[in-house]
């Protein structure tokens, strides 16, 4: 075979050449070490190119773009703030290592194991996110109460600066913590991997959302612009709602419901990061 054109060689590298022509090019490359080196360099430069723009996907998306996508114009309060997109398909090439674990039905074991305090504190509070879609002031009040409680609870966690408020610490193996927490819940719990955001899983706590047990997964990071952060996953029978940003008691939160699950992301990260991380969580947990 004579030397293939640059067009064909690059197309070969991109997987656009198939069948007999591909085999011919491969046979030709076998006898042309210089051409193999050149193709290797081309592949390397392509990898560098992808790397050069990879960080854009992890940047907070400006509010103005979110607003533009909604067909809105930002008001003066939010003009300077930034927000990240609800990203679904932007995570090409990233591995998922979340752990999916089946759940036992009983609560008893965990309560005996140290979750009783939080049950005591939170049990009987508002039905939380589940009430949001219901009409009437009672539902709104209930939701406000729950979100306020989530904000307060997060502040308590953040202020301790250690693992004192973690019922099930992630001692080396996160799967162990998830297994323990899952044994207490009536739903499957997965652990989103937020390490690309610099967030390390620290452990889990039990809360009550909508009258049902929920998992609060806590993460910390050295990046003060992002963490610490808590993700609460509970059950709900209420209809889905889209991610909604809120700010209470000095902390930011993003909450949504999807197919019987209620999710709340609570942290000090600005809205942009919270949207981005929430999007990542939703993608990993199939929660959108």
């Amino acid at each position, binding site marked *: 075979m004579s030397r293939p*054109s*640059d*067009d064909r*060689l*690059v*197309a070969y590298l*991109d997987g*656009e050449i198939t069948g007999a022509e591909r085999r011919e090019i491969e046979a030709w490359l076998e006898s042309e070490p210089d051409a193999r080196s050149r193709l290797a*360099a*081309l592949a*390397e*430069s*392509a990898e*560098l*190119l*992808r*790397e*050069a*723009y990879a960080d*854009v*996907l992890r*940047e907070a*998306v*400006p*509010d*103005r*773009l*979110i*607003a*533009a*996508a*909604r*067909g*809105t*114009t*930002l*008001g003066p*309060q*939010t003009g300077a*703030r930034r*927000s*990240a*997109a*609800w*990203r*679904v*398909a*932007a995570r*090409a090439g990233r591995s998922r290592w979340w752990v999916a674990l089946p759940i036992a039905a009983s609560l008893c074991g965990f309560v005996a194991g140290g979750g009783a305090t939080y049950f005591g504190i939170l049990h009987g509070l508002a039905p939380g996110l589940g009430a949001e879609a219901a009409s009437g002031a009672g539902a709104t009040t209930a939701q406000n109460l729950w979100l306020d409680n989530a904000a307060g609870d997060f502040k308590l966690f953040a202020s301790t600066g250690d693992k004192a408020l973690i019922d099930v610490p992630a001692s080396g193996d996160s799967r162990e913590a998830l297994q323990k927490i899952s044994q207490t819940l009536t739903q499957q719990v997965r652990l989103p991997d937020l390490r690309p955001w610099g967030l390390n899983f620290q452990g889990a706590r039990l809360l009550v959302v909508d009258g049902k047990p929920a998992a609060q997964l806590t993460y910390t990071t050295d990046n003060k612009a992002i963490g610490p952060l808590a993700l609460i996953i509970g059950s709900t029978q209420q209809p889905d709602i*889209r991610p*909604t*940003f*809120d*700010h209470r008691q000095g902390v930011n939160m993003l909450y949504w419901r999807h197919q019987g699950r209620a999710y709340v992301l609570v942290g000090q990260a600005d*809205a942009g990061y919270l949207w981005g991380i929430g999007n990542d969580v939703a993608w990993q947990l199939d929660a959108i």
Partner: protein
Amino acid sequence: MSLLRRSETSPAVKAVDGDPAAARFSDQLIAALPRLRRFARGLTGSVVEADDLVQAACERALARRDQFQEGTRFDSWMFRIVQTIWIDQIRARAVRKEEAEAPEALLRTDEPVRRVEARLTLDEVRRAVERLPPDQRAALLLVTVEGLSYKEAAKVVQVPVGTIMSRLARARIALQLQLEAGGGLRRSRKNVEAQ
């Protein structure tokens, strides 16, 4: 209070609020924003210009929502809008890009040498992309960064597949030569070996 609820409402959003299909369309658009920003960043080489471009594309997409064909790739449709607006812009005005920051100015003394070299390499890659002719740049970003097939990229920029193929080959070779000349590939290999 919701961030979005704090927003002022334009005539366009009234349709979104009252129309589930419009809301779904906006959801798709928001989901695509990170990749649109990445594509626009590669095209313009500027954070601000890229976001302006994406914002303009969002506005155009909402205005022409009825032109999107369900069942086709939404991201490709949006890439096409972004690319079209960008081409219109560079045709309408002579784009005078500021000189890229000199590599020396990017050095921070407290960074490990390997990290500095990695960052310089990626900066060099971006500068090399900015030096490519616009049509080659678009082809390169669509295929190599965004992962579109040649056929999909050809649809986005509305040229034959063969044209995409030749633009891409020229772009890839030019990029490689620039990186070889600037030492980017050498630094990249050194970093890999060091790891």
